[in-house]
């Protein structure tokens, strides 16, 4: 593993982003506008906003980063640059880490902006720590990036990659506890939700919003999310193929 090659790769990905102001705009603006919209819709039902605001603070960056990453790595595949890179002294892990690092950086900016606006402009109020919830939002955005890297190998075209959004993200949104608390789900669905990463994104923010009854349980959720990130990055690297038919 060479950090020089990891850093070169993440600098290159950031340069690509730098030449694409519209994507940067969408990356930063979309989650913030969605949270603003939610605050507006619920302006007379503040307690609802305070209840679903924190989980959505995790979900929006996750979804946006998932889409951006899966399309970006897929483009690398279809343009032939990935095949070239794999004939060069770049390891699969270096490639994946390079992406994770640059999009991770984008996630920090994105999550900082959307959390800052939510707590200090849109008036989201929680009993727990706004800072820790913002930190979880960064972790969730990173999870989106890692899952995008892992799943993009399953898609052969950008068209298919975009279909992963409804196929992979929407079921998790239904099962993550946002609509029905996970413990009230039918048993089989509860088990299913236990193995889906987004459930922990929601649990972490829920537990952080209510520190009195949940204590330090968010730490376990955060650790599980981190484990999902590591597994997703490892499988993203493992599914890259140097040799193809």
């Amino acid at each position, binding site marked *: 593993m060479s950090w020089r090659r990891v850093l070169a790769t993440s600098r290159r990905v950031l340069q*690509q982003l730098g030449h694409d102001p519209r994507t940067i705009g969408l990356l930063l603006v979309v989650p913030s506008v969605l949270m603003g919209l939610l605050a507006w819709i619920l302006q007379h039902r503040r307690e609802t906003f305070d209840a679903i605001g924190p989980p959505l603070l995790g979900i929006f960056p996750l979804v946006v980063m998932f889409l951006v990453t899966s399309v970006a790595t897929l483009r690398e595949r279809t*343009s*032939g640059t990935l095949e070239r890179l794999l004939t060069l*002294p770049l390891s699969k892990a270096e490639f994946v880490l390079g992406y994770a690092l640059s999009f991770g950086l984008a996630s920090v900016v994105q999550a900082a902006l959307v959390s800052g606006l939510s707590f200090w402009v849109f008036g989201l109020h929680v009993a727990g720590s706004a800072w820790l919830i913002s930190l979880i939002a960064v972790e969730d955005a990173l999870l989106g990036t890692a899952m995008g890297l892992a799943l993009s190998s399953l898609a052969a075209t950008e068209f298919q990659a975009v279909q992963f959004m409804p196929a992979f993200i929407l079921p998790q949104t239904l099962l993550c506890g946002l609509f029905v608390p996970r413990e009230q789900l039918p048993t089989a669905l509860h088990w299913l939700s236990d193995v889906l990463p987004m459930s922990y994104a929601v649990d972490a923010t829920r537990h952080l919003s209510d520190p009195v009854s949940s204590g330090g349980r968010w730490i376990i959720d955060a650790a599980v999310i981190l484990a999902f990130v590591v597994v997703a990055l490892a499988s993203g690297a493992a599914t890259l193929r140097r040799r193809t038919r």
Partner: protein
Amino acid sequence: MDDGTNAPRTGSPVVRVEHLRVVRAHREVLSDVSFTVERGELVGLLGPSGSGKSTLMRSLLGVQIIASGTVEVLGVPAGETALRTRVGYVTQAPSVYTDLSVRENLAYFADVLGAPRTDVDRVINDVNLGHHTRSLVRGLSGGEIARVSLAAALLGNPQVLVLDEPTVGLDPLLRRDLWNIFQSLASSGVTLIVSSHVMDEAQRCQRLLLMREGHLIFDASPRELLVRTNTTDYDAAMVSLVEATP
């Protein structure tokens, strides 16, 4: 350096292909292809599109799954880690980042290779792209993009260059310049395998490998091709050769 089984050997041949067979989607794309290439040779790989040229080149890079046979480059199996700084590769479709500038592209590939940044200026000069270093690749013409892709393969000190149709779509002047670069690289000891579907380019090579439907049907010098087929131009030679092949 020669003791280690995985260290590239400097002794000849540089490329050794034996009984190579590649099957893709139940179709035999390469059938029993064998040849060797010595150090400093400039070999033209010619044949109509679909004859298996790109597949053969991908096999030399070790990115093609092969059904059977042996492919060795610099004495080690194709695709070994030790070869990745020593073999330069240009794919048929230009594989560079269209949303980066020419210089950003080359600087990135130089970093991955561990080549000095001064190399970037050298290869930009080689392919005559000095006026476009800050332009986004997206805005360049097809021929210019192909040259960026070629420049990336010249970074570092490749001992072997595998170039898949590097001159397609370029104007005759630029084609001549590039072939001059290939010839001077070959005389400095670099081994080049250059594919083309334009038979005219045959005369630029020291040696020709002609492919047709996955078979290697001719392997000798361009002169030998004209003599053996009793023709005066390379297109006619190809036709005569194909008609003579059972």
